[in-house]
C-alpha cells in the first residue's frame, strides 16, 4: 500500500469537505478499496471514512417505501426484520454477498458506488427501479449505473441512501464464480405495479443490465414455465477464464427461471 492520509468524517457535510483534498477517496466498508490499495492498484492520497456517520446507517420501511442508509452493512441489510418482511429478496441478496466477515464491514453505499460488474446490489436496484440518493440529488438506478466500475456520481458526490418501492414479488438467484465467489450471473426478478423487470449482474460486458428477452417472456406470464425455451443472446456478455459468453447466456435463463420460481413460492 502507498502512503495515505486517513480522515474520519463526523457527518456527511464534513465528509463532503474532506473529500475535496488532494486525490481523496471515500472509504466505507473498505472491502474492495483496501484490498485494491494493498495490491497498489488504487493509490488515493487521502481516505475519508464514512463508516461511523450515524445518519448514513440503518434501514427504514414506511408503507411500501424502503430506504437504506448508504453506510448500512450487508449484515444489517440481510438481518433487518422490517426489510425481510417488506422485500425478503433484497435481504436475501445481501446475505449472499462475500462471506460473513465481509458482510459485517461492507456497505450498500460502497458497493453501489464501486459498481463492480459482478456485484449483487446493482441488479436489485436496477430491477426495482430504485433511487440512489446523494448529498446533491436523486438519481434513478437506470441512469446511475453507467458502465464497468462507472456511475453517474460526480467528483466528491456522496451517496447517502438508496430507496425503492417494495415489489409484490421478487427474488434473486446468484451463480458464483468458483474462485472469487462474485456473481458469474446474478438475476434479480421483480414484479410490481409497473410490471416485471429483470436485471442481470456479473454477465454484461458493460455492467448490470435489464434482460429484455426475459422480461418480454415474463410480462405475459410471471411463471418459471414461461421461460422454457427462451434463449438469451450471448452478444455483449463477458467471456473470461471462468465462463464463456455462451455459458453466461444460458445461466441467465436458468437463474431467471429459478428466481421466478422462488418469487412465486
Amino acid at each position, binding site marked *: 500500500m502507498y502512503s495515505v492520509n486517513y480522515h474520519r468524517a463526523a457527518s456527511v457535510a464534513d465528509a463532503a469537505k474532506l473529500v475535496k483534498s488532494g486525490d481523496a477517496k471515500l472509504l466505507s466498508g473498505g472491502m474492495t478499496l483496501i484490498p485494491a490499495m494493498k495490491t497498489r492498484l488504487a493509490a488515493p492520497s487521502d481516505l475519508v471514512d464514512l463508516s461511523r456517520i450515524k445518519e448514513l446507517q440503518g434501514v427504514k420501511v414506511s408503507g411500501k417505501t424502503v430506504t437504506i442508509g448508504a453506510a448500512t452493512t450487508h449484515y444489517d441489510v440481510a438481518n433487518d426484520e422490517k426489510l425481510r418482511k417488506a422485500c425478503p429478496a433484497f435481504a436475501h441478496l445481501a446475505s449472499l454477498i462475500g462471506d460473513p466477515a465481509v458482510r459485517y464491514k461492507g456497505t450498500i453505499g460502497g458497493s453501489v458506488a464501486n459498481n463492480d460488474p459482478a456485484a449483487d446490489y446493482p441488479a436489485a436496484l436496477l430491477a426495482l427501479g430504485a433511487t440512489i440518493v446523494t448529498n446533491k440529488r436523486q438519481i434513478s438506478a437506470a441512469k446511475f449505473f453507467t458502465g464497468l466500475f462507472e456511475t453517474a456520481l460526480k467528483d466528491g458526490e456522496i451517496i447517502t441512501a438508496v430507496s425503492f418501492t417494495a415489489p409484490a414479488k421478487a427474488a434473486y438467484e446468484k451463480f458464483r464464480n468458483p*474462485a472469487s465467489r462474485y456473481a458469474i450471473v446474478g438475476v434479480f426478478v421483480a414484479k410490481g405495479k409497473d410490471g416485471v423487470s429483470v436485471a442481470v449482474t456479473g454477465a454484461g460486458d458493460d455492467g448490470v443490465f435489464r434482460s429484455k428477452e426475459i422480461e418480454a417472456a415474463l410480462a405475459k406470464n410471471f411463471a418459471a414455465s414461461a421461460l422454457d425455451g427462451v434463449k438469451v443472446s450471448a452478444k455483449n456478455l463477458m467471456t473470461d477464464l471462468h465462463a464463456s459468453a455462451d455459458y453466461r447466456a444460458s445461466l441467465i435463463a436458468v437463474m431467471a427461471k429459478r428466481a421466478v420460481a422462488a418469487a412465486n413460492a
Partner: protein
Amino acid sequence: MGIEGIGARVARKEDKRFITGAGRYVDDMVVPGMKHAAFVRSPHAHAQIKKIDVKKAQGMPGVIGVLTGKELKADGIGNLICGWMIHSKDGSPMKMGAWSPLAVDKVRYVGDAIVIVVAETKGQARDAAEAVEITYKELKTVVDATKALQKGAPQVHAEAEDNLIFDWEIGDAKATDAAIKAAAHVTRMKIVNNRLVPNAMEPRAALGHYDKAEDHYTCWTTSQNPHLARLVMSAFYNVAPENKLRVIAPDVGGGFGSKIYIYPEEIVCLWASKKTGVPVKWVADRTESFLTDAHGRDHVSTVEMAFDKNNKITGFKVDTIANLGAYMSLFSSCVPTYLYATLLSGQYNIPTIHANVRTVYTNTAPVDAYRGAGRPEATYLLERTMEAAARELRVSPAELRRTNFITSFPHQTPVILNYDAGDYAASLDAATKASDYAGFAKRKAAAAKQGKLRGIGMSCYIEACGLAPSSAVGSLGAGVGLWESAEVRVNAVGTIEVLTGSHSHGQGHETTFAQLVNQRFGVPIDSVSIVHGDTDKVQMGMGTYGSRSGAVGMSAISKALDKVEAKAKKIAAHLLEADEGDIVIENGEVKVAGTDKSLPWFQVALAAYTAHNLPAGMEPGLKETAFYDPANFTFPAGCYICEVEIDPETGTTEIVQFVAADDFGNIINPMIVEGQVHGGIAQGIGQALLEGAHYDASGQLLTASYMDYTMPRAGDLPSFKVSTSNTPCPSNPLGIKGCGEAGAIGSPPAVINAITDAIGITDIAMPASPSTVWAAIRAAKKH
C-alpha cells in the same frame, strides 16, 4: 495398546500453541535490528535485461540497500541446481540451464527475481522496489510444453536445444509394442494432468542474519528440510560453510512439497544481510507465492492399454511430455521419471510396460514435487484408462480391476519396483461396501427424476513412499541419500528428548513420535519432547516429504530406542542382579520377568548418569543415535469411490459421497492418519474440480490470486467416509506405510470417473469446473 501408545487416538500435544495463537512461524520472528526486503521481479515471461538502474531506488526513504545479481555473482554465490541426474535414453545427461538467484542478463518467467531492496519497513522496501528501473528487450514466449518442443519455438535456455531437457524411457518398448499388436482390445487415451499451485496457507518467508563478529549466518526459513537447505546452500550455492550456517525451520504453515526446495529468496536474504549489515526478512505475499512457488503436475500423455480376450492387461504404453517450467527446481527431474513411471503398474499384473518421458523448459514457474509428486500423475493415467477400458469392454469397473489385481507378494513389476505386501481386494471390498456400490443404479434413477445426472467412479491407487533406500536412489541419479536420523536422549530424571531429522509442518510428529516412545518405555507423552527443525540442535537429517516421516523417520527413532533399551536393560540387570535377557520394560517400570523385582524407569536413567554403579566398562549416560536407511520403498494402496450429482443446467458438480478405503500398514495415531487422508482427498478433489494454473500465451499467470485460482472451500466438499484395512509393511521395523499423499494420489481419477460416468462421456478436462461440465454436457447432447 496403552492410552498413549501405538494405535491410540491421542489429541495432539502441539495443538495448544496453535489454538492459542502461540505458534511461531518465520514471519513471527524478530531479530534486533531486523529490516525488510522486497524483490524486484520480472513482469515479462521472457526478456533480455538491458539495463538495471538502482539510483532512484537507493535514494528513497528508509532504503538500506539495493542489490543486483551482478554483485551476487561477484561474491561467488552459485546457481541453483537440480539435485537428481537423469540421463536421456541416448545416454546424454540432462540439459540443465543456469538459474541465478538474481537474474543477470535474462529473465525466463514472470516473477523471476532480479533485484533485492532492503529498507526500514516492508512498505518502504516495496516503494523503492517500484523505483528500480529496468530496461528489457522482450522475447517471444512459450508456455505450453508440447509447443515448446516444436522446431523454431522460443529457446528458454541455450543449453537445451528445442527446450528438451531429457528424453527418457523405462521398460521394454519392443515387448510392449508386441503386446499391443497382439491384443484382443486396446484402450487409447490422451490424458492431461493440470498444473497446480500448492498453496500452503503460510506464504514462503526467509530471515537471514549475518553475525559479523562470529562470521556466522542464521537463516529462519519456511522449509520442510532445514538440513538439506543448509547442505545445498553450503555445498552448491557458496553461501557459507556448513559450520557457519544455522538453518531453522520453526513452525511451518503447510508445505505439500513446495517448501522442500531451496529458493532464491533465502539465499539472497542471507547474502544481503552480510552486504547490508542488518538482518533481512522477506515474506511473500500471496501473489508472489502464486508466481514463484514451485508448481505441480502439468503433464500431457498418450496411453495405450492392451487386453487379452479374458480382459487381462497384457501391456501398457505411455508417452508423456512434462513441463518443468523455466528452471530445473531441486527435485524436478525425478518427479516425472522415478516417482512417476515406476508406478505405472498400479495394483495390476502387467507383463510389460513402456514409458517415454520428455521434460521441457517453458516460460512458466518451475515445476517440482507437489503432494504425491509423480504418483498422482501415474495413478490418473492408469485409473482413467481402466475406467474407460471397463466401459469399452462392457464390464464392471470393479470387476475389471479385480481381474487384474496382483494377489501374491513380493511382486516384481516391470518398472523397477518390488511390492512387498498388500491386499487390494480387501480395500476394494471395503470401499464398495461403504459406498453401497451395488445400490448405485437406484440412486441414479432417483436423481434422474430430480433432473440430476448422477455418476460413480472408482480409483484403485498404489504409491511408493517412505523415500527411500539410499543405494537405490543413488543408482538412479539422486544427489543425496534418503535415510533418516534420530537421537534419543534420556535425561537423568527419565524424561526424554527425541531429536529427529524429520520436520513437522502439520503432520503431528510431536504427538505420534512421542507415542512411539510411550509404547516402548511407558513414559507419558507429556514427558517426551520432540526436537526438530534446527540444524544447531539436531544431527543431520533429510526432512519431510514423500510420506517418509513415519516409515523412515520413525524407524530411525525406533532403532535409536532399540539401543537405549538395550543399554537400559544392561544397567537394570546389573542393579537388580538379574539376567539381561529377563529384563522387561513396561508401564514406566523396569522389571525382572516372573519376579516382583523392579525399578522405576527414572532410577535406571538416574543410574546411567550418576554412574556410581554401572556394569564394568560401561560408559555413563543414556543417549543413542541411529541412522535408518530403508530396505525398500513402502507401498500404501487403497480404493476410493466418488459419487457425484451434476446439475445439467448449470454444470455444477456436487460430491454426494466420497469413500476412501486405505491400507497404510500399522497405524500409530488413527486420528492423525484420518486427518492426513481428509486433507489429501480435499487436494485431489481440488485438482479434479476446482484448481488449475493458467498462463496466457504471453506467459502472464492469469490465476495469481484466490480471485481466480479456486481453492477448495468447506462448501465445495462433503464429509468423507474413510476406513483402513491394513497389511503391515514387512520392510521397516514398525510395519508402517505412509499416509500423507494417498488422498491426493487416489482421488482425482475417482472424481473424473464419476463425472464422465454421470454425463456419459469418455473424458473431461480437469478442473471439471461448472463451465467445463456444462460445455461437456452440451457437446454430448449434440453427438
